[in-house]
């Protein structure tokens, strides 16, 4: 279904930033619409954090412009920042305060009126699963809970734009799942921009992705399109009673088979001709006893290589 285009909540134009002689950000422009989750994907040191710091007004760009909900962040910072919620890489927590005191402070400092604070507090605690932790001192909470408090302070004033810097780093898998579903939910009402170096994170929660490399945005598209880049035609198969490798290689459609362990094989095939159905049938007929069949996942590295290859090919053609 084609939705009417929602308004742009965050727009950055031609951001540039240098630290000393080192140009960290080259000409970064991006746009974010309401109800969109944008993933900023890149290696450590690609400039993701610097970009997010500029988008939240913690750092001024050398040149370029930023608008939050149509308000110029550089000219009228106080007005624009009221629409922003920011969770930096290290959650900004006053560890000696209790969760309630801290969140109340965060709400007031973001301009929530005193009368509205209890409702905002209750809502963000409920969204972040902090109902039982209100009176606890933040320093005594586990890392996962501290991260939740960090998210709670970023959303307590229900901002139009939520900026999250690596929100799932250092959490255990269950916490990662909780936080991802929370981010998805936040994306229904607000715009979310998050940075990550995990490909899977972008695939599971982001509508759109911008890939950042050495301070430049080298690729921007929907995350579904990006997955095509990340797609590798192949799988890993584990058999408890494997046949000879030549038998596997002989199945129609199989391009290349490599034995990893006596029971595990990496099978590559042509993108348009997946032999896994034929293979599974043979498994059942011949009693190879299938254990596992895992599609191959591309790494961020693979995607980078493909995208940069595709780009250089495109520029080559243009010439």
């Amino acid at each position, binding site marked *: 279904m084609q939705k009417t285009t929602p308004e742009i909540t965050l727009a950055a134009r031609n951001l540039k930033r240098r630290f000393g002689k080192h140009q960290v950000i080259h000409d970064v422009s991006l746009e974010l619409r309401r109800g969109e989750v944008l993933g900023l994907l890149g290696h450590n040191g690609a400039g993701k954090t610097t970009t997010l710091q500029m988008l939240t*007004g*913690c750092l*001024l760009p050398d040149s370029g412009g930023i608008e939050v909900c149509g308000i110029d962040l550089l000219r009228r910072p*106080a007005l624009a*920042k009221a629409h922003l919620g*920011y969770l930096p890489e290290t*959650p*900004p927590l006053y*560890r000696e305060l209790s969760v309630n005191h801290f969140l109340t402070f*965060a709400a007031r400092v973001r301009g929530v009126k005193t009368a509205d604070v209890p409702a905002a507090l209750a809502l963000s605690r409920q969204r972040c699963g902090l109902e039982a932790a209100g009176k606890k001192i933040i320093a005594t909470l586990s890392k996962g809970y501290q991260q939740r408090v960090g998210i709670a302070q970023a959303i307590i004033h229900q901002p139009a734009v939520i900026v999250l810097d690596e929100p799932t780093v250092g959490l255990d898998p269950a916490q990662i799942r909780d936080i991802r579903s929370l981010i998805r939910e936040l994306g229904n009402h607000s715009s979310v921009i998050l940075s990550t170096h995990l490909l899977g994170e972008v695939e599971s929660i982001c509508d759109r992705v911008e890939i950042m490399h050495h301070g430049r945005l080298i690729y921007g598209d929907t995350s579904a399109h990006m997955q095509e880049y990340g797609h590798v035609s192949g799988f890993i198969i584990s058999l408890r009673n494997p046949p000879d490798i030549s038998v596997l290689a002989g199945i129609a459609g199989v391009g290349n088979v490599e034995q990893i362990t006596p029971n595990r094989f990496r099978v590559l095939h042509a993108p348009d001709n997946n032999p896994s159905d034929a293979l599974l049938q043979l498994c059942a007929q011949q009693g190879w006893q299938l254990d596992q069949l895992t599609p191959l996942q591309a790494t961020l590295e693979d995607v980078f290589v493909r995208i940069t290859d595709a780009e250089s090919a495109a520029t080559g053609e243009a010439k």
Partner: protein
Amino acid sequence: MIRLLAMRELRSLFAVPSTWFVFAVLQFILAWFFLARLEAFLEVQPQLAQLANPPGVTSIIAAPMFSTVALLLMMLVPVFTMRLIAEERRNQTMALLLSAPLRDRHIVLGKFFGLMVFLALLLAGVPLMLYSLMLGTHIDQGLMLSNLLGLLLLAASYVALGLYISALTTQPLIAAISTLAVLLGLWLIDIGALADNSPWHLLSPLHHFENFNNGLLDSGDAAFFVLFTAAFLALAMKRLHNNRIYG
């Protein structure tokens, strides 16, 4: 907004045990000093009674006590100002303030007033002890008030200086030692300049406090404190702004 930030500062201060420890130790020291001065006064009282125009209880007990507190402030203030901005940077909580709809002056003034209220609470025991003398005798209200005002202005100038130095670094300890060094330096300039009319005296906050200590309200001294405080607060705001530029 300033009040909100000041309240946060106070709440954080009182949430740490070390604050209460300093609080307790300081009350003990002040009380001991007060009682020692009181005892000395009681000993010399018979001799004072024979003088034609004897100094009163306020100038024998209160004035020395205030000048001691003024010296103590020099060591006390850096301990509390060191955290103000340096620790926010180190704990990365500065991002919360920088990304909030606040101006740099809100942040600086919030911290300044928060710490001033704290120092007022910390030193509230001094006037309370001195006013307890009213149970048995008369005290010189004028001298008391000029001392209190002087102490307030002195504390403000120290806090402003400490706040600025705290804004320069990410290490609270470096901020504390630097602030102490500057305050000691200003004091040493004062006592090192022997000539009474040496211009070096003018640089020292403690020198300007002396007149207040003696019950002399000089607008020049008050202006010095106000300018000193305002200058360092402005520098701290400038520094926060530069932080966004230079990272």
